[in-house]
């Protein structure tokens, strides 16, 4: 009975995957609406008289990206310190064959998402009229989607105990 309860509760690696997926989703939620708006705005300003405004917007975009990535790193560090303390015994254990299999399977899923996303992006670039700045944002989005799927799949595979 006690073991059944333990099985139902989350392990350190499950918590790690879940937290990482949530952190990536949070960063995407904070970064992309603003970044896409700024990128579109910069495109509209791409005229001779708007050059100083473009510089300003580029700087804002850079600060937004750097701030979001820093936020993601800090969040991940703090979160992993907390769960490392709470799940001390689990956290100290070395990865075994099951962990490696979960990582490989989840990585494969994340890679598929990345690959499909990049092909879609390339198709848009070849046939559509997408600026380099927006294309960079979409590429960034594809990378984030791949990472999110990788972490989410890691969590699901651990729960399913493949």
């Amino acid at each position, binding site marked *: 009975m006690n*073991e059944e309860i333990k099985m139902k509760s989350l392990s350190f690696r499950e918590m790690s995957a879940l937290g990482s997926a949530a952190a990536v989703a949070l960063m995407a939620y904070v970064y992309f609406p603003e970044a896409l708006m700024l990128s579109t705005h910069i495109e509209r300003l791409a005229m001779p008289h708007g050059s100083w405004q473009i510089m300003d917007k580029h700087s804002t975009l850079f600060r937004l990206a750097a701030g979001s990535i820093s936020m993601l790193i800090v969040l991940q560090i703090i979160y992993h310190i907390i769960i490392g303390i709470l799940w001390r*015994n689990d956290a100290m254990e070395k*990865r*075994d*064959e*099951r*962990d490696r299999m979960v990582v490989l399977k989840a990585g494969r899923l994340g890679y598929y998402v990345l690959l499909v996303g990049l092909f879609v992006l390339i198709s848009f670039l070849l046939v559509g009229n997408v600026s380099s700045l927006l294309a960079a944002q979409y590429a960034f989005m594809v990378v984030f989607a791949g990472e999110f799927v990788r972490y989410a799949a890691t969590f699901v595979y651990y729960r399913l*105990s493949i």
Partner: protein
Amino acid sequence: MGESHITNNMRALRFAHGEMTQVDLAKAVGVTRQTIIAIENNRYSPSLEVAFRIAEVFGVPLTEVFMHASVSPVR
């Protein structure tokens, strides 16, 4: 080809070996406690190497720890 299912006697063997804990077994085998829990609950089939190590820890043949139950294919 029918589905295969591997079951095990690990829980009974642990109790027969001085109520060995999952943590102790995990340490002896060299896997995580979560993996031992998953194997005991028939949710994960270990590699041959890990299966042999588990049998070694209990000092019994592999077939006394793991059983293979074939399920005939559904038409």
